[in-house]
């Protein structure tokens, strides 16, 4: 049973001794390298990634063992699946072969069942290799082209895996001949059967050659992998295990900001150990590059290159740090990471849209790193695009981005009879208008429309007026953490003052809720259950059961919901598209179904979509109001393409490359839609500009969902609870 002896007993001493020495040497080299890699990680800052252990184990099974992430891209995905499992099984067989070299047989691994499994995977992995080589040599997807790394590494590994497979296969073949058909391996037996006439002695010798070839390649693998880009083979499973379980829309807080000596990241050891591990885990697959809106419009931002720069800096500067702090300090001065390996222009080009984080199959978090380095530039160097200075000054002085008195914040609502909380503190719902809704003429129309929708639904709501300050989101995303903390603290006090704070136990509960990862989404084709109301968690007849904050701005919504808890502010906050969806579901808002006869497309704003997984609610609402349903753009839901306004970009000039907003408007026009529905004031503002830029304003427009609804309600004025029929159960889909 199993494999035969690979050399006559006479050679035992020499063969085994040589092999034994090589085996030990390779393992020592491997373990020394691993120790260095771990020591480098230990240079990083502490970060707790041991929360949600149960979820971590589950996710690990799914993504690593099940290969769910890579399988989303079918051709390389399936090939990867077989390479991955082939690799694992071949490694197990390596133990078998090593044992053979030392003249003993392992249980289980030496069995026939394993031999068959091995035989199958050798064959499957070989096919997969051909797929990979074809993809790199013939298809050459843009994502795989690297700015700073040569493809040589990739071919070395493909070649080595190929050698392992070939040597293993021929070992099976010659073993079959040498043992006269005793070894039981379907593919090996087939070829071996054809060569049965070969003398046993020749077969034994060739078997030895194949064995040595295999053993030597596998042992060199052991040394090569942790020293090459294929480090990811070792690091990825850990990186997936240690993925983020905090709300994904939240940036990490800088605690005790007034007592620190450094802010953000500009030397490698200021990253956390997990951020450094991201560098090891990067497989250089380039998916992040392929979805980046900045890169797609010719800006100098390659998300993959940022991650690789972190890794390169860790090996260079981190390696020096392990030896002496002085050398590393000197390097930080002469070859700084920020401004050197990572260009400042790259950092400022990022819209924080999160497409890179969302698509990364190995749970790398690009945006936090980019914003960490922005924090350094803003708070330590005071170096940022000049046009941002007035933004910061106005946020400090006027609590809004403009040189406008915050006392006029409620002026837009004067004619609408909307109370401020100072006038009526007992309201059920606080409408968080945001600066855009309050001051920006275009978005005042959205605020007005949403107020009318709530009035029609008999919602008892109010606004804060001058007591509302900017949430601080643009400041935080640009890197001014200090200003965000000041504004957030102020807003939290106001909200708590009006009784919107949640009890601590409830707050802890919701903060503990794991966010749904990349695997939790329905497909990018918009085929999720967008027409069913069954998933909404509020009982019919009531759209809200606690004091609720509703925001029309996804940026306000995201920071209040996901980031204010970092400063002790815990509120029930929802986006207005969610709220409208609940109002329809509960029967509180009756819409003239199919009223809007236009062909509509819908743009997913990044800060409710990717960062908060709100994809279905806006579509459900549109499917009620529109007779045509939603016509999807090429990139939609979690693959949506940013408007260009996030990450503080709305406050910066877009000087390089094509304009992101125009690109997206063109994509919307390509659907043949009459109008674009949106759900974010920044998207609306960016697209208004984009529509004019591509001269489509005569036949195309952008509207907030609330505006589309308000028009329908205006056109058919009825008393609340009146005659318009809108089934409260399951409205028919317009699709």
């Amino acid at each position: 049973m199993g494999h035969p002896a690979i050399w006559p007993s006479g050679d035992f001493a020499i063969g085994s001794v040589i092999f034994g020495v090589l085996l030990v040497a390779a393992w020592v080299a491997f373990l020394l390298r691993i120790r260095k890699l771990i020591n480098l990680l230990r240079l990083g800052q502490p970060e707790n990634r041991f929360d949600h252990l149960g979820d971590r184990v589950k996710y690990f099974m799914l993504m690593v063992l099940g290969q769910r992430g890579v399988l989303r891209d079918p051709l390389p995905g399936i090939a990867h699946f077989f390479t991955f499992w082939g690799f694992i099984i071949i490694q197990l067989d390596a133990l078998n072969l090593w044992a053979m070299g030392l003249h003993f047989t392992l249980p289980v691994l030496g069995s026939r069942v394993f031999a068959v499994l091995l035989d199958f995977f050798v064959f499957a992995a070989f096919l997969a290799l051909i797929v990979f080589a074809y993809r790199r040599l013939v298809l050459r997807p843009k994502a795989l082209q690297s700015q700073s790394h040569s493809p040589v590494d990739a071919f070395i590994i493909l070649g080595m895996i190929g050698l392992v497979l070939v040597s293993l296969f021929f070992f099976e073949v010659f073993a079959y001949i040498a043992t006269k058909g005793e070894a039981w391996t379907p593919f090996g037996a087939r070829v071996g059967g054809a060569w049965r006439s070969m003398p046993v002695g020749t077969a034994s010798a060739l078997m030895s050659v194949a064995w040595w070839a295999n053993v030597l390649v596998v042992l060199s693998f052991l040394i090569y992998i942790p020293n090459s880009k294929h480090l990811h083979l070792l690091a990825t499973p850990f990186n997936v295990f240690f993925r983020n379980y905090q709300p994904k829309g939240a940036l990490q807080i800088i605690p005790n900001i007034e007592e620190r000596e450094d802010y953000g990241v500009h030397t490698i050891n200021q990253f956390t150990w997990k951020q450094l591990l991201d560098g090891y885990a990067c497989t250089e697959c380039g998916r992040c590059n392929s979805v980046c809106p900045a890169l797609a419009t010719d800006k100098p931002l390659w998300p993959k290159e940022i991650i690789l720069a972190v890794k390169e800096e860790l090996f260079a500067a981190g390696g020096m740090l392990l030896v002496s702090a002085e050398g590393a300090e000197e390097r930080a001065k002469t070859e700084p990471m920020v401004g050197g390996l990572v260009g400042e222009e790259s950092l400022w080009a990022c819209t924080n849209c999160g497409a890179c984080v969302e698509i990364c199959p190995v749970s790398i978090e690009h945006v936090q790193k980019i914003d960490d380095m922005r924090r350094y530039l803003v708070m330590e160097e005071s170096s940022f695009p000049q046009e941002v200075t007035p933004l910061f000054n106005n946020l400090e002085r006027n609590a809004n981005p403009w040189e406008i008195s915050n006392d006029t914040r409620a002026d837009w609502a004067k004619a609408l009879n909307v109370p401020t909380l100072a006038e009526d503190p007992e309201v059920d719902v606080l409408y968080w208008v945001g600066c855009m809704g309050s001051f920006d003429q275009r978005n005042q129309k959205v605020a007005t429309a949403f107020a009318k929708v709530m009035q029609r639904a008999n919602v008892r709501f109010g606004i804060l007026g001058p007591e509302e300050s900017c949430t601080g989101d643009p400041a935080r995303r640009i890197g001014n953490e200090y200003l965000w903390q000041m504004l957030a603290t102020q807003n939290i006090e106001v909200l708590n003052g009006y009784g919107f704070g949640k009890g601590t136990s409830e707050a802890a509960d919701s903060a503990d809720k794991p966010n749904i990862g990349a695997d939790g989404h329905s497909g990018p084709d918009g085929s999720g259950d967008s027409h069913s109301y069954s998933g909404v968690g509020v009982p019919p007849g009531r759209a809200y059961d606690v004091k609720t904050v509703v925001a029309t701005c996804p940026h306000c919504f995201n920071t209040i919901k996901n980031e204010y808890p970092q400063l002790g502010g815990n509120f029930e906050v929802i986006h207005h598209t969610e709220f409208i969806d609940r109002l329809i579901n509960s029967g509180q808002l009756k819409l003239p179904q199919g009223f809007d006869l236009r062909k509509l497309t819908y743009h997913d704003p990044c800060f409710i979509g990717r960062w908060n997984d709100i994809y279905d609610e806006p579509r459900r609402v549109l499917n009620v109001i529109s007779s045509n349903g939603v016509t999807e753009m090429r990139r939609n839901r979690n693959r949506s393409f940013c408007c260009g306004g996030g990450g503080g970009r709305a406050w910066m000039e877009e000087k390089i490359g094509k304009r992101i907003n125009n690109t997206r408007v063109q994509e919307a026009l390509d659907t043949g839609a009459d109008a674009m529905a949106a759900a974010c004031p920044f998207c609306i503002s960016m697209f208004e500009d984009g529509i004019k830029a591509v001269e489509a304003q005569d036949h195309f427009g952008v509207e907030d969902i609330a505006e589309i609804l308000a028009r329908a309600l205006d056109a058919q004025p009825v008393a609340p609870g009146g005659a318009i029929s809108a089934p409260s159960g399951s409205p028919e889909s317009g699709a």
Partner: protein
Amino acid sequence: MKIVMCVKETPSTTAEKRFGADMRLERRKEDAIINPFDEYSIEEGLRQQEKHGGETIVLSMGPATATDTIRKALAMGADRGVLVSDPALAGSDAVATARVLAAALQKIGFDLVLFGSAAADAYGGIVPSAVAEFLGLPLLSFATKLDEDGTTAKIERQAEVGYNTVETQTPALVSVMKSINEPRYPSMKGIMQSKKKTIDTMSLADLGIESGTVGAGASGEKALSAEKITTQRKGEIYMGNDGAAERVVAFLVEQKVL
């Protein structure tokens, strides 16, 4: 080189202006900011210091709470602050203020004094020249560029056509225009360090000024009334390719711009 930047605390430019019975502007602490014009003189002082070394000092006259405003200037990078504060100073007009600043400047000592061109509360713009008069020193006013080499100060001043170059021996006073630079936004390091920097407070007695010579009683400048002016901006948009350019040209000719 010793550079003193004179700074005023003013209400935010967006704050609603309210006047008391004596027609004096009511100043609310929460609205207080650095006079936006002074940010340019602070920046210019810091840039001169970066070039030539020496010390930068922020000088202000105001209520005791004006130290917060001085701290903001220190956060931008100035070395230390001096606040002249005295209850008897309340209601001082531009000339009285200049008298006090001149005395404080003499006490501090200086090679170069920098002012913003005016303050964003009353837009008087005469304090720099009044201080120069009290000190008997030259004032290079409305600078859009400043070169200083330790013995002479040279500025450029916008003229109707091109600019004038004006030069004088130091010590001298300079008032700057907004186009001279782009003021920096304080870094966190700057903000944290500013908390540890010293701000000396001086009273009238420290400066040897009789309280009868300053304050509301000694001020000849009186506000009689104030009213809110609302300006109506109107715009005309000429669209399309047909004749729009001609109409724009005609408009500009009519306005005597062309």
